[in-house]
């Protein structure tokens, strides 16, 4: 560094510190205003008994959490969230890996298949879910119609109207929605496996199953872990699918924490309890994220 300094304002655009601040400002403002502020607000609310009827901040300590935990609906929602996240993401891993294998092969009409696979992801969640709402309608469901025509059923299935079936339907739609993202992530991982590795597997005499389970899957593990992480976070924190399809019903059988937080806090007006429900899984998610990212990094370095 020389001791002579250029006049500040003239060379402002050459000043790396000024430029760094300038370029980062939009992202920082965005995150602070739309993520950071609500997040802090939620934490504050969770320790008060604030409600839409009484918008005063009375700190009540862990009392709000205690009241939330005592609610049997909350406990059901917690269990449902767990089921929902685990089953949906297991399905996502299997389907996404299979799809990724297909999409990395060369065949005619590949662009069409790629387009169709990505469609659930690019369609707005609520619109796509409303389509499913119609598809699974208790009276006009086209699925029921087809099954009826095939003679497999005599009366409608009520996809969203019976507890176990409703949960299955919700899981299926959520899987349908997340699979494209996971498939694209896994596909990137597949493409990154050097061609000579697959050649070596062929020359070494391994068949397709051995290749899949002993070479491809272990090499994909870090990437699949990242895909699962995205899937779990999207399943636990996003309420659109459940809320549009069942609003948590029938009789709370598809109630998950995200919908319960909304119903309790926004529709029921108990802002403090809603915030407490929403924050409940935060430590768990942070834990999962830390572990997965760490594992992924470890596998990369080997």
């Amino acid at each position, binding site marked *: 560094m020389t001791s002579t300094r250029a006049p500040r304002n003239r060379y402002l655009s050459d000043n790396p510190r000024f430029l760094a601040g300038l370029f980062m400002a939009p992202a920082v403002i965005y995150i602070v205003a739309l993520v950071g502020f609500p997040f802090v607000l939620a934490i504050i609310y969770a320790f008060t008994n604030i409600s839409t009827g009484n918008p005063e901040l009375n700190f009540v300590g862990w009392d709000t959490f205690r009241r939330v935990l005592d609610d049997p609906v909350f406990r059901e929602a917690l269990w449902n969230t767990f089921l929902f996240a685990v089953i949906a993401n297991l399905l996502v891993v299997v389907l996404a890996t299979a799809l990724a294998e297909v999409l990395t092969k060369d065949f005619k009409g590949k662009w069409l298949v790629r387009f169709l696979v990505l469609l659930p992801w690019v369609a707005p969640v609520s619109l796509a879910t409303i389509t499913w709402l119609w598809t699974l309608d208790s009276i006009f469901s086209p699925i029921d119609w087809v099954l009826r025509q095939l003679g497999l059923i005599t009366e409608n299935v009520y996809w969203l109207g019976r507890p176990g079936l409703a949960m299955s339907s919700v899981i299926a739609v959520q899987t349908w929605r997340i699979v494209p993202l996971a498939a694209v992530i896994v596909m990137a991982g597949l493409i990154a496996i050097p061609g000579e*590795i697959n*050649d*070596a597997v*062929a020359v*070494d005499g391994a068949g397709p199953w051995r290749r899949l389970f002993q*070479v491809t899957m272990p*090499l994909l593990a870090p990437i699949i872990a990242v895909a699962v992480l995205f899937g779990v976070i999207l399943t636990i924190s996003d309420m659109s699918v459940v809320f549009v399809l069942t609003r948590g019903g029938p009789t709370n059988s598809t109630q998950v924490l995200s919908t319960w937080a909304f119903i309790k806090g926004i529709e029921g007006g108990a802002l403090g309890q809603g915030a407490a429900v929403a924050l409940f899984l935060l430590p768990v998610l942070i834990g999962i994220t830390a572990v997965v990212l760490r594992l992924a990094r470890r596998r990369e370095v080997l």
Partner: protein
Amino acid sequence: MAVVEVRGLTKHFGDVVAVDGVDLQSEEGEFLVLLGPSGCGKTTLLRMIAGLEQPTEGEILLGGESVSGLPPRARKIAMVFQSYALYPHMTVANNIAFPLKAQGMDPSKRAAKVQWAAGLFDIDGLLHRRPRQLSGGERQRVALARALVREPTVFLLDEPLSNLDAKLRAAARDDLMEFQRRIGITTIYVTHDQVEAMGMGDRIAVMDHGKVRQLGTPEEVYHHPADVFVAQFLGSPPMNLLESMYYLFGFRPEQFLPEGIAESEGARVPFTFHVNRIEYLGSERYLYGHIREYEETKIIAMLPATVTLPIEVDQDHKFSVARDQLRFFDRDGGQRIPPQALNR
């Protein structure tokens, strides 16, 4: 051990003809090198022998039996890849054991076999490491051990030394040769490095544009090139080539010597060599210039360090070539033709 034979082997990639009707036969236990510039089809030819590419036309025989349509695993071949293609998530021991597991060999036999292969390449101490913890040379040995552990009948190598630095390469070449001699397995080795090819090959198949231009011992391809391509591809610097009225003729830079230095008895053909520039390389000197009457063509002479005769730049010098070191080629096709009278 087996002989590899290909008949009329052709491979098209869309409109590109990668391999164009190649006929080639190895000998038992031979070290056969496929040499050529990048894109000449040598790797594609090797991959077809391995079964990794299906030929468009033609036949491949291993040990006298056609293997057309057979997958790689049914061919009893082993291949070492340019990047070694070790499985990064497996230990060295598991890498070597992988082909045996695929064969369904039982674990106790397998361990003994892995030990044997590791011993061959002196990597017993590395069995519990992972590929990333190994140096380039060690990785290569692991790749060789993995290839050899099944005791294949044919050994295919695709530029296995190109990822090593120069020093390691010489040592690895030495190891590879020593090992091949010991096992005596038929080996096909692809490279674009003529020094490797000359030094290692029992025979060299020089390839260009999907065709084998010449198949012969290193001496044959160097001293008696079948055509202009081979003459200019081999040798560094390449053969000097001059165009006369009826034919092309050439000579190697090291055969082009100043008058008075040349010791050979036989008839010599004199030239007047105008030297433009001298490169001093320690063990030899390169002289760049041109020959009177062929001013257009650049000529290189290579003088060993033992020739201490001072050479002045920008002057004419009397040089000569032994008559029997002149090579003649057809003007149109570039094929070698019998010695002609130099009419100047």
